[in-house]
């Protein structure tokens, strides 16, 4: 068991190093850091001095090391655009994105998984076909179109829900939350649904596909031949065996949610990290871009580790393989 954890940790570190390398290259080679920081009038000499002071003339390895060290310490540098510390900007925006992401994930799982199981079991029924058709629409309609449509319907025509921004939020420490105000919750609803729909349909399709595969296996046949009641067959036997691939994809989806939040935040003007990243792309604000990159990678790596640990808990064959070295 130990070697398994160690192995995965090392892999994660490797991935993080690779990503930080990319981020570092961005920093160093795209555009000129010095040119971004000084005005027109600064003399060449002063620019040189600045370069020296920032350590930009040191060997690349040293610079890279410094970069990684800074990242670990939490020193993310300053934004080219706003001159603010990047860490501040990100911390400011993180709660918005995380809350949005969490609610969307919840929606997609709570609806997607049961729907997937249902369509796998009841094939050909009316509800099944309706659900299947809607998954097709769900993965074909771009997130932003869904957002626009929802805004138009619920925001403009019906006027039930706010159309942009977070509404009222409550500050707890450095975290601003939408959950504690009615207005905040109302503002959260549409974006969360928009973000969640794509993920929901993906989940549903995946769960359905995996369930169908499992239902064809020999051990289900044997269990049926033993007269095990259908409810137990589906949940105790079939669904349990679909958990492994489903968990993988859910893990990946968390990432998809974080990524697609960019679009949703853009449509709803939701002040989250995604919008921040988008602006940084538009204005070529390298420090923000590269830090965002590293953070996302970190999130993924952590999620992947968690997923692997879950495998361990669920599938005894994985445990045995690692115990034997």
């Amino acid at each position: 068991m130990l070697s398994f954890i160690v192995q995965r940790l090392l892999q994660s570190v490797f991935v993080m190093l690779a990503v930080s390398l990319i981020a570092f290259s961005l920093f160093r080679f795209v555009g000129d850091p010095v040119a971004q920081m000084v005005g027109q009038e600064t003399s060449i000499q002063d620019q040189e001095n600045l370069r020296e002071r920032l350590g930009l003339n040191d060997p690349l390895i040293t610079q890279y090391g410094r970069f990684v060290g800074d990242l670990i310490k939490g020193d993310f540098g300053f934004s080219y655009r706003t001159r603010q510390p990047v860490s501040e900007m990100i911390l400011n925006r993180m709660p918005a994105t995380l809350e949005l992401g969490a609610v969307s994930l919840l929606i997609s799982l709570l609806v997607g998984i049961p729907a997937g199981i249902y369509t796998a079991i009841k094939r050909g029924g009316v509800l099944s076909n309706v659900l299947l058709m809607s998954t097709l629409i769900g993965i074909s309609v771009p997130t932003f179109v869904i957002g626009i449509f929802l805004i138009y319907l619920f925001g403009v025509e019906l006027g039930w829900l706010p159309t942009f921004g977070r509404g009222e939020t409550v500050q707890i420490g450095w975290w601003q939350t939408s959950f504690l105000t009615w207005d905040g919750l109302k503002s959260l609803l549409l974006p969360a649904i928009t973000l969640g729909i794509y993920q929901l349909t993906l989940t549903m399709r995946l769960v359905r596909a995996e369930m169908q595969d499992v239902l064809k296996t020999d051990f289900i046949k044997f269990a049926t031949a033993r007269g095990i009641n259908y409810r137990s067959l589906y949940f105790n036997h079939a669904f349990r065996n679909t958990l492994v691939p489903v968990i993988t994809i859910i893990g990946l989806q968390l990432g998809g949610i974080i990524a697609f939040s960019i679009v949703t935040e853009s449509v709803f003007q939701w002040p989250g990290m995604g919008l921040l990243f988008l602006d940084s792309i538009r204005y070529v604000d390298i420090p923000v871009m590269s830090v965002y990159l590293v953070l996302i990678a970190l999130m993924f790596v952590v999620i992947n580790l968690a997923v692997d640990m879950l495998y361990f808990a669920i599938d005894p064959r994985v445990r045995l393989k690692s115990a034997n070295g």
Partner: protein
Amino acid sequence: MDVLLNINNLSVKFPTRFGEFSALDNIDLSVAAGEIHGLVGESGAGKSTVGAAIMGLLQSPGYVASGDINFMGEQLGSLSAEQYHAMRGQRISMIFQDPQTSLNPLLRVSQQLIETIRQHSDVSYSEARKRAIALLEETGIRDVEQRMDEYPHQFSGGMRQRVVIALALCTNPELIIADEPTTALDVSVQKQILALIRSLCTTRNIGIILITHDIGVINEITDRVTVLRSGRVIESGLTAQVLGNPSDAYTKALMAAVPRLDKRLDRFRNIVSDDILTKENTSWVVEGANAQFASDWLLQDHQFDKQQQDNDARSILSVTNLAVTFYSGQPGWFKRDEGFKALSDINFTMRTGEVLGIVGESGSGKSTLAKAIVGLVDPSAGEMIFNAEALPPGSQRARTHPARRQIQMVFQDPYSSLNNRQKVEDIIAEPIRFYNMTSDNRKIRQLVASVLELVEMPQSAMLKYPHQFSGGQRQRIAVARALVARPEFLICDEPTSALDVSIQAQILNLLKDLQQTFGLSILFISHNLAVIRQISDSVLVLRNGALVESAQTEMFFSAPKHEYSQMLLRETPSLAMLQEQQ
């Protein structure tokens, strides 16, 4: 003995896009308590369909077209879906072929047992657990208390099948359908499981339907037997009667095709023949192509002289101290990988024109030996000498090394040994082109057609794709492909293990004929001792990668020296007694 099950005039059909397919056609069957009724037939006979129909688990879109299934006075056809499902496991149970896939890998054995018990009877958890323990002991599992909480993959194949049997028994059914229960197991384990089934049948007084394609198994434990072919009952009756003195021509042909363990015959006679050589198929020919043409090509216009070959007594292949070790390639952090010894210290020599049989159970290393010779796997030690020259290990063998043409191989699985996307013509022509044996396209076509005729296939086969042929026919194509390269040495790795018994006999006949006509040296690998006896001149026994015994065939079979060989001979289900009468 009271009759448990009575099937009358049962017909099952499957609608397909080619019309309606009749899987079963007016089947009659009856099973009594305490009796094992064998259901035997080749593939496509409909044996498994009978089992599925009884359980009410026909694969859709199949349906029961007519007839009825009567179980202890009840017409199963008139049961509702719930009633049927309640009956499953409770009164009729079924076990399948592959113990590995029959058990839920994520649940402990105890959980699966207890769940089944509590499904059908209202008992407490601890009571169910006690019953489970008793069952596992009854099916011969040791250290039950300890092992029952383990997962399926922690058991060996034979043990798993015992668990499966326990699961089928735990609800005390009156009838059990066993669909090829021992096919996936090694010979030694097979005999034990069969004995277990027999004893359970007698002590519990249940009826058992044993579905299998293996006639030896039928002879071993069944009381009565029904022979199926293409969905129809050919013959039915007491086992000793049907097998020993068959009345139907098909049954006779089937029995004639079973390889004998007690005596070597020069050919299989009076067997079922392949029906592909119809007039329709043979009307299309390539000009100038016939079996003689192929024969001339293979012998390079010489005459083959068997006498000369015998006098020659050269050795074609000599293997010394051969060892193959596999490393898993996943270095642990604290343990160095010792590797898995697939073969260790193998020594033998083959003369030109000899047929050497390699026999062993699974994991014995037989295939690894073939792979080492042919270059797919590198030996970790030892030498191979082919035609008096050193044979380099596969990774060092040049692409144009002559041994690559001189050694050809016929594989086990006819469904994966041919590229499904290539026409048969291209498949057979590929070696000719690749080895640059001739660049005349017309000649190549003639050769392909001729070689097909040589392996008793119609020349028109070259226009088709592999999936349009049956397993046996595909194997003939594989043989044609191997032959066309003019090999001196042929390795056959379980070439008939995936084939039905009659087809196996046809292919073995073919191989014998070819060997005699062309003086091929053949390395024949099989796990089936009877097949080995019928085709080889000498025998090599492998066990867990080590050479256990090596001898001339006749000497080996009349008096094997090693204990393991004796065990193998003993445990192989055979028809020795019956065949002696013939």
